[in-house]
C-alpha cells in the first residue's frame, strides 16, 4: 500500500465536497509534525495502519469552515489555534471522505477506513504509529472564499 493518490484526484474530491475552488500545490518543504499538528489514521479491516494524513491547524480551520460555510472570520480564529468543535468535526468528515481515494488505489483488494483524527498534543503516541512511511506527499491547500490556508502530508504507512 505504498501508492499515494495523485494531486489532481485529491483536488477534484475536495472541490466536489466543499463545492468551492481548491488550490493544491506541493509544499515547499516537508511538514514538520509538532504538538499542534493533527493526525488522521486510516486502518485496514484487519486493524493494520495503512495510511495517515497529518495536517496543521490551518488545514483544520480552512476545510472545516468550508464544508458547512462557516464564516471566514471563524476560520481565521481557528487557524490561530482557537478551533471550534464544529471546525474539527467538519475537518474529520473531510478526512473521512478523503479515505475514498485510498480505497480506489487498492482496487478492491484491501478496504481502508478512517480510524480517528487526533491532535498530537492530546496523544503524542500517535507519532510512534506514524513512521516516515514508504512514501509521502506534502501539499499546501487553499480554498476559495477563505483567507486561511493549510498543509497536509499524506503518508503510506503499511
Amino acid at each position, binding site marked *: 500500500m505504498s501508492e499515494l493518490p495523485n494531486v489532481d484526484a485529491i483536488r477534484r474530491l475536495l472541490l466536489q465536497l466543499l463545492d468551492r475552488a481548491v488550490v493544491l500545490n506541493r509544499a515547499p518543504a516537508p511538514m514538520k509534525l509538532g504538538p499542534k499538528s493533527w493526525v488522521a489514521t486510516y486502518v485496514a479491516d484487519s486493524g493494520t495502519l495503512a495510511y495517515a494524513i497529518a495536517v496543521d491547524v490551518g488545514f483544520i480551520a480552512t476545510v472545516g469552515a468550508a464544508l458547512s460555510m462557516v464564516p471566514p472570520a471563524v476560520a481565521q480564529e481557528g487557524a490561530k489555534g482557537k478551533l471550534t468543535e464544529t471546525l474539527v468535526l467538519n475537518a474529520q468528515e473531510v478526512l473521512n471522505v478523503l479515505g475514498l481515494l485510498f480505497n480506489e488505489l487498492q482496487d478492491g483488494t484491501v*478496504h481502508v477506513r478512517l480510524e480517528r483524527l487526533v491532535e498530537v498534543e492530546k496523544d503524542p503516541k500517535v507519532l510512534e504509529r506514524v513512521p516516515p512511511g514508504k512514501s509521502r506527499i506534502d501539499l499546501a491547500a487553499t480554498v476559495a472564499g477563505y483567507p486561511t490556508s493549510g498543509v497536509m502530508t499524506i503518508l503510506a504507512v503499511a
Partner: protein
Amino acid sequence: MKILIVDDSKAMRMIVQRTLRQAGITGHDVTEASDGREALDRLRSESFDVVMSDWNMPTMSGIELLTAVREANVDVTFGFVTSEGSPAMRLIAAEAGAKFFIAKPFTADAFATALRPVFGG
C-alpha cells in the same frame, strides 16, 4: 414523505438536506439522527418512508442499522450516502436490501438519478 437522514457528521446531514433541495426533492418531512442506534430507536417509535444513511458511524454502522431494520420488519426504503463507494460495498449493501447507493462526494445530479425511483419525478 418522511425522510430520516443518518450521519455522525452534522455538516454532512446539512449538506444532504441541501442537496435534496438542489435535486428538486422538496416538500418532505426530514428528520436527522447522528448514528445507527439513534436512528433505530426512531424507526421503532415512528414511521418513516425513506432512510438515507452513512456507512461508517460510531455505536452502530449503517450496514448494522440496515440489518437491524430488516430483522425488526420495519417497512422503509433504505439507502446509503457514504464514502464507501467500492463495488464490494455496493454489493454488500444491495444484498442487505439497500435500494440506492450514493457515494460521497456527491452532486445534485447524482441525488436526482439515484433517488428518482424512490421519489419519482
